[in-house]
């Protein structure tokens, strides 16, 4: 960072940031100024925070708040170390010019990695502030503390300095110290408090500025016309067909076809009027064929992920009782409420893209390559979109807008339709698992084998290939992105012999991307569903069956607390009183992160096959809790969304394209089926904070399946749990 920056420079750049839209009114500070030559170096304190003369602070956060509450949680983490209130902190998120690259906002890493990094920057800043104040007063540093934004002698005697008086706008010029001491948890004043999220009032009153609401002067509205089938090429376009819409233009770049117009409604009308001919194309297998196709290949490899003990011996032991089962999870959509939207401006050899991307830094080179610009001339700025839960259509809409902005020389806003979003968002990939388990004569699990069939993510591929460059014939690295979908395929219990293998498929049925808790939802469904099958075969209560094979106190605590809150009474399943059932499931997320136990009570109607979740209890240990209220809401959301995915959701597609493109054909859970949910947080103030966005999703399908079995004896191994599947799985009436 350059040492001397004038006020004018600062304000000028601040003005660029704010042009064209009003920042939402908020109880918290908004950035007053931003240094023009600000560093984004992750090893520099100045990369992450700036202290202004008035004592306010701006945090530059590479992670973004997609609705999960980082906007308050990360403020709390920084405020605690800096000794100020959260209301003094402004936060800029996901701006490639201003925020350090902290990695994409994926994998439940917002607090665990992003927040922890910023906390360390704040702790380093705190040490520097204390040092500066101590020097000025000739006091030892340990005699000085920061309280309420003032650096004061602990004795109360002597001079205080405002934190803004000690460091000029030029910043700290200080390396982030990974060993800078953190405040002890016992002294926390801000962390651990259920502070309200700063964006909620504006969201509730309709004043929050989403990317959908962002405008620029002279902006055109664009609509991209996707082909009627995946892979179809554009054979002809009748440009005259849009003439009834005054000012509408057709933009064609090979198979990338769009209309632009001065108003959004004109763009919608023109897109409806445009006549185009496309080649025949029918490259898809159709959703009904997915499961069988996963075993047929083609394959690109096979890996053994876990191999302990003599699995073959355990499974072939003639005294053992061996169970085998297959579990299947279908292709699913992120199914965001708002179809994706973005705004782009390409002029003077540079580009600015306002996008709801979870990964502005990650996508920056892809946008530069697509636009033929150097990376440093491309800026992606995060603005809130509709919740995405993995990469939905936001990045594609941003690419659409960027290509159209380049083609027209004007700022362009692209808003996808409902059909675009459900039809063309990259999808959560399907998963197939075969499980084998051996029970010894005493009912102990002696051996376990999981075999998975999964699409293989392409090594080194930086991002999901985008639709716009692909259809426009602009080269980009191709391949598959799935997230880490092979984790949690082994039981989290003390089983003496375990083998997990994965057969890697060369392709996925539809373009894949990461979707919330990638892979772990299906894997935990299989592992915890199958473990329940083993408990049933042994005549064991499913809580007791788990507890006796657990050695980790945090796991035991989560399970017993959830069970106690559900008033669990030990007995084997199914329930002697039919129609109502309870189930339990547990995960240690990625075998290294958050511990979650979920207990669930359901009603099952044997005649209709309808499942009604009635009560859900979730005991959740993600280490240090930063904001219990925001965390609880994340967990409630993960549970409800995963109930929806488990009960209702499968993307339907034929040989040409996705056919489930509205809320009637791709239904999600509504108010009528929302159970009572109780979230039980197990705070661990002395342990590091872990993720709260994903882990709670993963035990939901197994807890539900186990509860359904308990209620009616139907063992469900294929999602979604449709009434037909329930009825088909019912045992004959006694």
């Amino acid at each position, binding site marked *: 960072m350059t040492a001397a920056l004038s006020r004018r420079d600062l304000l000028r750049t601040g003005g660029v940031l704010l042009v064209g839209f009003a920042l939402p009114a908020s109880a918290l500070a908004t950035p007053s100024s931003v240094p023009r030559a600000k560093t984004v170096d992750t090893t520099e304190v100045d990369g992450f925070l700036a202290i202004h003369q008035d004592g306010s602070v701006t945090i530059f956060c590479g992670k973004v708040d997609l609705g999960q509450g980082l906007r308050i949680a990360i403020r709390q983490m920084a405020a605690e170390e800096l000794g100020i209130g959260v209301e003094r902190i402004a936060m800029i998120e996901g701006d490639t010019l201003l925020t350090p690259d902290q990695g994409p906002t994926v994998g439940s890493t917002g607090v665990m990695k992003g927040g922890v990094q910023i906390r360390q920057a704040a702790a380093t800043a705190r040490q520097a502030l204390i040092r500066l104040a101590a020097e000025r007063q000739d006091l030892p540093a340990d005699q000085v503390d920061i309280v309420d934004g003032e650096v004061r002698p602990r004795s109360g005697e002597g001079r205080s300095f405002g934190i803004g008086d000690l460091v000029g706008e030029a910043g700290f010029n200080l390396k982030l110290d990974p060993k800078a001491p953190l405040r002890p948890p016992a002294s926390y004043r801000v962390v651990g408090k259920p502070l309200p999220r700063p964006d909620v009032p504006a969201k509730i009153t309709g004043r929050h500025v989403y990317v959908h609401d962002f405008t620029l002067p002279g902006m055109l509205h664009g609509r991209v016309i996707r082909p009627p089938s995946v892979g179809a090429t554009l054979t002809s376009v009748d440009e005259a067909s849009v003439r009834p819409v005054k000012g509408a233009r057709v933009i064609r770049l090979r198979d990338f076809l769009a209309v632009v117009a001065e108003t959004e409604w004109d763009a919608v009308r023109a897109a409806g009027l445009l006549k185009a001919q496309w080649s025949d194309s029918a490259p898809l297998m159709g959703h009904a064929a997915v499961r069988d196709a996963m075993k047929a290949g083609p394959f690109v490899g096979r890996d053994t992920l876990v191999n302990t003990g003599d699995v073959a011996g355990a499974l072939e032991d003639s005294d053992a009782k061996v169970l085998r089962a297959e579990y299947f999870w279908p292709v699913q959509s992120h199914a965001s409420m708002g179809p994706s939207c973005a705004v782009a401006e390409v002029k003077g050899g540079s580009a600015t893209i306002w996008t709801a991307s979870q990964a502005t830094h990650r996508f920056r080179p892809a946008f530069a390559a697509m636009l033929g610009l150097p990376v440093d001339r491309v800026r992606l700025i995060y603005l809130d979109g509709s919740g995405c839960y993995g990469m939905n259509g936001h990045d594609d809409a941003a690419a659409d807008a960027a290509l159209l902005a380049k083609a027209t020389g004007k700022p362009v806003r692209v808003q996808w339709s409902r059909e675009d979003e459900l039809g063309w968002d990259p999808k959560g990939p399907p998963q197939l698992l075969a499980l084998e388990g051996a029970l010894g004569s005493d009912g102990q699990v002696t051996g376990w084998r999981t075999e998975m069939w999964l699409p293989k993510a392409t090594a080194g591929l930086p991002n999901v290939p985008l639709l716009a460059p692909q259809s426009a014939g602009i080269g980009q690295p191709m391949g598959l992105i799935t997230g880490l979908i092979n984790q949690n395929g082994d039981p989290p219990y003390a089983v003496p012999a375990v083998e997990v293998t994965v057969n890697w498929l060369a392709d996925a049925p539809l373009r894949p991307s990461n979707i919330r808790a990638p892979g772990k939802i299906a894997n935990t469904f299989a592992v915890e569903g199958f473990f329940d099958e083993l408990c049933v075969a042994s005549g064991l209560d499913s809580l007791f069956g788990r507890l006796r094979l657990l050695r980790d106190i945090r796991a035991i605590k989560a399970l017993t607390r959830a069970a106690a809150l559900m008033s669990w009474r030990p007995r084997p399943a199914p329930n002697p009183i039919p129609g109502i059932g309870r189930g339990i499931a547990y995960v240690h997320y990625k075998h290294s992160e958050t511990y979650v136990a979920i207990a669930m009570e359901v009603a099952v109607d044997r005649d209709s096959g309808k499942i009604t979740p009635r009560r859900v209890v979730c005991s959740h240990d993600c280490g240090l809790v930063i904001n219990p209220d925001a965390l609880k809401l994340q967990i*409630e959301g993960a549970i409800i969304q995963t109930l929806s995915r488990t009960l209702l959701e499968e993307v339907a597609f034929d040989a040409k394209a996705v056919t489930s493109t509205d809320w009637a054909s791709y239904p999600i859970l509504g108010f009528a089926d929302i159970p009572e949910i109780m979230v039980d947080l197990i705070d661990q103030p002395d342990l590091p904070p872990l993720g709260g966005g994903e882990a709670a999703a993963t035990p939901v399908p197994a807890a539900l399946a186990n509860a359904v079995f308990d209620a009616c004896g139907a063992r469900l191994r294929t999602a979604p749990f449709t009434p037909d599947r329930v009825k088909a799985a019912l045992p004959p009436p006694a």
Partner: protein
Amino acid sequence: MPATPPSKARTKAPSPASQRTISLSLNGTATVIAVTDPNQPLLYVLRNQLGLTGAKFGCGKGQCGACTILIDNEPARACQTPIAAVADKRVTTIEGLGSVKAPHPVQAAFIAEQAAQCGYCATGMVMSSVALLARIPKPSLDEAKRALSGNLCRCGTHQRILRAVMRASGSAQP
């Protein structure tokens, strides 16, 4: 899939008769709107012509409720309402209820319950809740669920939203 084809009626070119204005009461203020296409959905007029962006485009089909507004105090889908249909009506949008500094009691209840994650569905939820509470001041939980059944939420904020409705009604919260 192709972009949503607008219905035939909506794609008609503006006729001379459409070069007109309509009058309505918008958030309590008598308002005259220049109409270029009487079939243009109210949602686009609100968002792009009047700067009222609180109502969101979610589906364009009346399936999700993200664009819910009140017409003569009844909840309606702005994406399904041609602008011509609100002539001489009373239209209330989320912006007409209250503001960040002075929220409507239902908005205040939503804020108190922190009943939003991404928040994209939130304004529609508030509008449907206001309509419910005007009709049934003390709804049961089931009545609240029914009244909100046309509003979808993907983040899973339902329990908070129901609590907010109950809080606003002065009833015990679930």
